């Protein structure tokens, strides 16, 4: 495969172009992830063969199809336990979980909940396009209340989830919200997440022009992208209380939590080593 | 009686709508049984679009959803004509869009070759109703369904603003 683009060395270029619709934000996110990884690999803080991806099912989870790393495209909602299984038995792996808002926050809700509670040593990147893309535009737990989706034709009656608050309340070591409309910042967040122990959670606002855009009247990729960009509010070190997730008040992006409690893997190893010490 | 109808063209030519309207008209405005299936490529532009209809007067003869040897066909583009002509049987009545078809295979078909797209553009100001022009042609030549039935269906199916031009396009061949 001839290398053209600087990220081609990290891509399965024979699978390009991607399956994503034109102008889908997910490709932008993938670029940010790969550039962040590139920085880490170049600076020597990560070894390439120790990077693994895992994703469930959805347009976002299909991100696992393209990186030229160990990668698992598993079942809807279950990438986190898959990744944790890898991580526990091979702690040297840096496992990156990528998934959509449905994959991670709806069906996978219990796993993200407990992964964060455990402060499991994973990087979890949730692409939030506020919709179910893969299945054709149904309501997601992130869909702002009132908006039209195909399963809420009279408007979404549900309150949307602010997953930043959840992640913070459960004690993740790193909690950030980025947006594909703000790529240098997003890349920096992922770079940082890759360096953390414990659970690093990055919610990424992304665009689904094909469905979400169409639902809300912004049909072209550029229209939706610029609409989202308008509604994004960048804050430096905002508090969790400031983490507005709202169609009206805007979506605050930034780093909400950055702490350094021991991760699950090291505590597990410490306790497990007691067994080897003969205790118990 | 058992008739297979094939409707094919490229994405964007309104093939699915054509097939749907025809199928629906048969279902609702004849006493025939019908099964229909659609194929469309995922690509935004240019992929295959195809509708297969199996129509019969006895329920058990409406027995398959894919055309195995079409009795009637509308093909709106050369690419699909090349791809599917083996599915059209000898003796079939075949409607081809001369605007997009350049070479017609030597087969024992009864061929109607008319520039549906050009007609649509010329007469109705948009190529988007080429499908209705062709449909009108089919309905006129085959009398598979009553034209009023088709018009009824157009009215329930097509977005309001488009009903009128679609009906006019549909009538193009019927009224001559």
């Amino acid at each position, binding site marked *: 495969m001839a290398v053209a683009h600087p990220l081609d060395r990290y891509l399965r270029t024979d699978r390009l172009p991607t399956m994503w619709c034109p102008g889908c934000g997910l490709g932008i996110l993938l670029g940010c992830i790969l550039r962040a990884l590139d920085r880490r690999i170049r600076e020597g803080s990560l070894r390439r063969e120790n990077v693994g991806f895992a994703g469930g099912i959805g347009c976002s989870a299909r991100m696992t199809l393209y990186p030229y790393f160990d990668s698992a495209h598993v079942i*809807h909602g279950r990438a986190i336990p898959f990744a944790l299984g890898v991580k526990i038995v091979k702690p040297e792996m840096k496992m990156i979980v990528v998934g959509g808002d449905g994959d991670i926050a709806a069906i996978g809700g219990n796993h993200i909940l407990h992964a964060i509670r455990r402060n499991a040593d994973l990087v979890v990147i949730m692409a939030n396009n506020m919709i179910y893309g893969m299945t054709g535009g*149904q309501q997601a737990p992130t869909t702002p209340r009132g908006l039209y989706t195909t*399963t809420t034709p009279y408007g979404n009656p549900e309150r949307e989830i602010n997953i930043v608050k959840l992640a913070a309340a459960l004690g993740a070591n790193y909690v950030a919200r980025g947006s594909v409309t703000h790529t240098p910042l997003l890349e920096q967040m992922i770079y940082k997440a890759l360096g953390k122990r414990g659970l690093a959670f990055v919610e990424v606002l992304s665009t689904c022009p094909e469905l979400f855009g169409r639902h809300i009247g912004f049909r072209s990729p550029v229209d939706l992208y610029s609409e989202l960009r308008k509604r994004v509010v960048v804050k430096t070190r905002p508090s969790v209380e400031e983490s507005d997730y709202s169609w009206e008040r805007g979506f605050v992006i930034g780093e909400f939590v950055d702490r350094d409690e021991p991760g699950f893997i090291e505590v597990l190893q410490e306790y497990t080593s007691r067994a080897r010490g003969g205790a118990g | 009686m058992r008739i297979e109808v094939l409707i094919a063209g490229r994405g964007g030519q309104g093939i699915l709508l054509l097939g*749907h309207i025809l199928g629906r008209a048969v*279902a609702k405005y004849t006493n*025939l049984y019908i099964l229909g299936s659609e194929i469309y490529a995922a690509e935004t532009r240019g992929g295959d679009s195809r509708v297969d209809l199996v129509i019969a007067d006895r329920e058990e003869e409406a027995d*398959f959803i894919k055309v195995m040897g079409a009795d009637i066909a509308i093909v709106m583009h050369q690419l699909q004509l090349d791809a599917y002509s083996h599915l059209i049987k000898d003796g079939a009545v075949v409607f081809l869009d001369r605007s997009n078809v350049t070479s017609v295979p030597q087969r024992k078909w009864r061929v109607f070759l008319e520039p549906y797209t050009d007609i649509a553009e010329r007469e109705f100001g948009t190529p988007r109703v080429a499908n209705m022009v062709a449909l009108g042609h089919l309905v006129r030549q085959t009398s598979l369904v009553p034209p009023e039935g088709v018009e009824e269906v157009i009215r329930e199916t097509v977005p309001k603003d488009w009903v009128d031009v679609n009906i006019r396009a549909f009538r193009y061949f019927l009224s001559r």
Partner: protein
Amino acid sequence: MRVDYVTGNTAIALGSIAAGLRFYAGYPITPTSDIFEFLARELPKRGGYVVQFEDEIASINAAIGASWACAKSMTATSGPGFSLMVEALSLAVITETPVVVVYVMRTGPSTGVPTRSGQYDVLQATYGFHGGLVVPVLAPATPQEAFDLTVRAFNVSEKLRTPVVLLSDATIAHTYGRVVVREPGEVEVVERAKPSVPPEKYRPYDPGEGLVPPMACFGEGYNVLVESLTHDERGYYAPRSDVQRRLMWRLYRKIVESAPELFDYGAAYLDGCDVALVSYGSTSLSTLVAAKILRSEGYRACSIRLRTLFPVYEEGIRRLLNGVGKVFVVENNVGLYYRELRGVLRGSEVVSVPIIDLDLPQPREVVEVVKQWL
């Protein structure tokens, strides 16, 4: 009554409305989402509720809950989602909860080819949940059958107080057809039996003379007990072999003894049939054509389309195929329902014709395979 031209999926949605659906609990999945979306638009207009849940587990459990509040309930899913529902279906079995699960099969295993078809899940549909009891499985092949069998699924479910699986597939889901749509008043609609005794005397799992207990609901003052443990007629936990036996055999019998009544099939070219092509669901369209081709080539072939897959009406099937020389079971999987049929038709020669195809098997291919055995 009106004639419509709709897909199998839409026909199911329309059928559920005709049967009195009041609650649809769903989680989107290809190729079922349009059932969900159709109902999301239509059911609220008729006073029903359509809610998207966080996953299939929540959906089926909510449907079960709603059924206990006297609302006819349904959910629709395909392989991955059905797999997540089986634990709750076992709950529905032991608590005798009427609920309809539409299972639109797609290409598996696992995520497979989500948009395409197959019949890989025919055994999971009834053997898939722990407890080893049968639930009725009805399999339409056309949009009209999808409509009719959906109504039937509700009726069976209410009558027998059981979950019922309506087993469709991706092909039927998106096949259009002429469908005679009947409105709520125009079809026979069965409602669950309600208790005739006063609340103090009501025992939620007491079948009286029959096999199916009358069902009181939440909010009616009956102090209903929904119990997933092995229970006696009151609904009290009773970990005893005699209670377990009584319960198991009653639950078994109420389904299996309905087999004759539930039995439903379509047959073509039956007279003088010596080569039977047995099939179900979309594949039976291929089989119908294959039988015709075989007839045209001089074979005495017929085509049988089973519309009730479980409970297996063994007598009926044997009677139907009595005297047929060879029985071919044509399926779009590795040969699964064949395992059932060869056990039932122990007198005949039964041959598996497994044809794996993302679409309908080509009739020609069916013919070729069958001819190898003739």
